């Protein structure tokens, strides 16, 4: 039981990194961005390109940290470019049209990745010191998973501080609540949107970069993770970062327990929980009637 919970929490925090950016972008721009999985994938490939394409025998931790941060920032730059070139047009579309538009963009990003890196699975070695496990309460836990939990907590707290205690957060929440009034008040809403989109894509890139030692990098990894991230965002409450955190950990643990105690439910438990939560609480776990929560 303890082992399943540890495993689920570790996986949940990784999913939170992806879902937090997704829900942040929705909260401000009111757009469900299917291409978010593409930014996650790009974060992974950027790290691979920087540190692992030459089959290194080992990966020094400082180099990995630099690659992860650089990869996340690079994805943020791609995010800014796509926001300015593509998303500003998508914002004007209806809900369904914008969903399909972002899904189309996801396919384009996957296609570009396929051209550049091919379809064969790739991986990044564990950085030194983080490729082992420790025993907690009789259960073996990977040190890298513990690091992921730590990063997830830092990101969650950081986002809370950013959105609640800084002028940028104040503006972002204001735009999320009423963009029109903000424009009348002289807030540069386009700039806020770009900044929030960049932050969201940096989080996706960070998730992808940090996931690389634990996954097989292929272009379709973008789709695999975005499906789970979407379920988390919907259940947590659209636009709710705290809801995404609760849902991500809840889903991670539920899936882990299902695998351990009733394997036929593994993979399906996500959608059963989503169905149940939406029946009981259609607005999601954390009610976020307006703006960011």
């Amino acid at each position, binding site marked *: 039981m303890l*082992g399943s919970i540890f*495993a*689920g929490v570790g*996986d949940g925090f990784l999913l939170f990194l992806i879902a937090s950016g997704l829900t942040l972008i929705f909260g401000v721009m009111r757009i*469900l961005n*299917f291409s978010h999985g593409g930014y996650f994938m790009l974060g992974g490939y950027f790290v691979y390109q920087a540190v692992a394409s030459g*089959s*290194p*025998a*080992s990966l020094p931790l400082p180099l990995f940290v630099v690659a992860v941060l650089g990869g996340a920032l690079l994805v943020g730059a791609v995010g800014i470019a796509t926001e300015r070139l593509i998303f500003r047009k998508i914002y004007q579309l209806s*809900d*369904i049209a914008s*969903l399909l538009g972002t*899904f189309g963009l996801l*396919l384009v990003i*996957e*296609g570009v990745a*396929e051209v550049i*890196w*091919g*379809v*064969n*699975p*790739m*991986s990044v*070695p*564990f950085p030194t010191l983080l*490729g082992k496990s420790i025993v907690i309460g009789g*259960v*073996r836990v*990977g*040190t*890298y*998973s513990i690091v992921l939990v730590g990063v997830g907590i830092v990101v969650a707290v950081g986002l809370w501080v950013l959105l609640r205690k800084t002028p940028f957060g104040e503006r972002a929440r204001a735009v999320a609540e009423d963009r029109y009034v903000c424009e009348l008040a002289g807030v540069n809403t386009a700039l806020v949107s770009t900044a929030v989109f960049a932050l969201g894509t940096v989080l996706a890139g960070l998730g992808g970069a940090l996931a690389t*030692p*634990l*996954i*097989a990098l*292929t*272009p*379709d990894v973008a*789709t*695999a*993770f975005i*499906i*789970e991230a979407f*379920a988390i965002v*919907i259940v947590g409450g*659209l636009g709710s970062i705290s809801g995404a955190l609760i849902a991500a950990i809840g889903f*991670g643990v539920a*899936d*882990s327990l299902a695998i*351990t105690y009733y*394997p036929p439910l*593994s*993979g399906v438990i996500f959608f059963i929980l989503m169905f149940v939560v*939406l029946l009981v609480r*259609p*607005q*999601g776990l954390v009610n976020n009637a307006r703006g960011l929560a």
Partner: protein
Amino acid sequence: MKKQRITLAALAAFSLVLAACSSTGASNDTTSSSQSVETSSSSVASSSETQGSTDSGTSSAATGFTGDPLKIGFLDTMTGANGNVGQLNLQGAQIAVDQWNAQGGVLGRKIELVVKDEELSPEKTVQHMREFASDKINLITGFTSSSDVLAAKPLAEQNNQLIVTAGATDTSLTTTQHSKNVYEVAANVHMMNVAAAHLAGTDWKDAKVWDGVAYDYLTGHDAWDEFGTLLKTENPSAKTGKSAFVPFTATQNTPFINSLLAGNPSPASSALYYFMYGGGAVQFAKQALPLDLFSQYKYVVGFAGGEEFSSALGAEGPHTYFIHDYFYQAYDNPVNQAFIDAWKKLPPTQGLKLAGPHEWTEEGYTAMLAYLNAIKTAGSTDTDAVRSALSTISFESPMGTVKFDPSNILAAPVTMWQCKGDASAEIGYSCFGSESVGPEVTLAK
């Protein structure tokens, strides 16, 4: 209200994506247009009268083709999750085509491949099979997915087309779902299981408990069950232990790994049956490495995949015994040497670090050799004549002289070889220690 509408829209779109992903294997949702692959020219190192080519494939162009080019259909998954398999199958088929064209083609005609991407989708498979029929292409190869072969089979029978599969491995294709229009080149799951059980009773006799991990689909469950049955015969002192079945879409593997570790495998007397391939096999391994799963087993035996696993894991890769149809170091004959030589002249495969041709390349190569030898023997490209020839001829392949079994599976050896991460190797791993189990063993049970 607005928010509820968006939630509903999100759910609708979400369902669409799920449906799309489940039917396409998360592949790129673009339709690949039909394309004729231009064949390159190469020199004739020796005039091979026989079914294989010993051409080392270098320079001068063959001339004197007569008549229209012979178009052979190549239908495989070229993009998305399993696109790597299809692309390697195509690489092998193209090597065979180039070698034969350099020697004058077949029946004096230049050979051309017409390549279509079925995107791991039965619907696309059916669509492309119909296109082949309307284009009068009756000889088709490729095929990674056994499900897609089953989708293509009724059309092949209806339109009198032949299929020689390169990568499909499901045992049912040549047993319960047998068709006189379908021939299978790759060793099927049954043959690999028999070979593994045979080795479990000989080379790996000291493994007393076999745990298993497989993809959570019918073939994965059937393969593990069959191996357990065969193990009882081949090594009565051994037994099966824990098993885990991993969904194709799983992003989280740790609980499966923990469930295997809960059985307390012994590094001295336990073995792991690893029926996973592609990205899923790599991802499972990545999450198993920090938990020391592989070092708890004396033998880790991987099925249906090979160096793509070791290539992705590099120096971290565990010592793995692979069971599949072909390994380039295992066979010493002119056809294999010519095949390896031709492969070495190709540009490196994107994202794959190899020291020799991958078995999926060999499958595409041998499937094409089967067709070309059958056409040559039949003296015709007529479906019935080629089918008759396929069922009777022997031909030289990289694994030696082979012929199709009456069940339409190629009676060729199953090969076991070992690879492990090796920081001193240029490609990050090294492979060694191969052994063959012949069809007299694998097809006898």
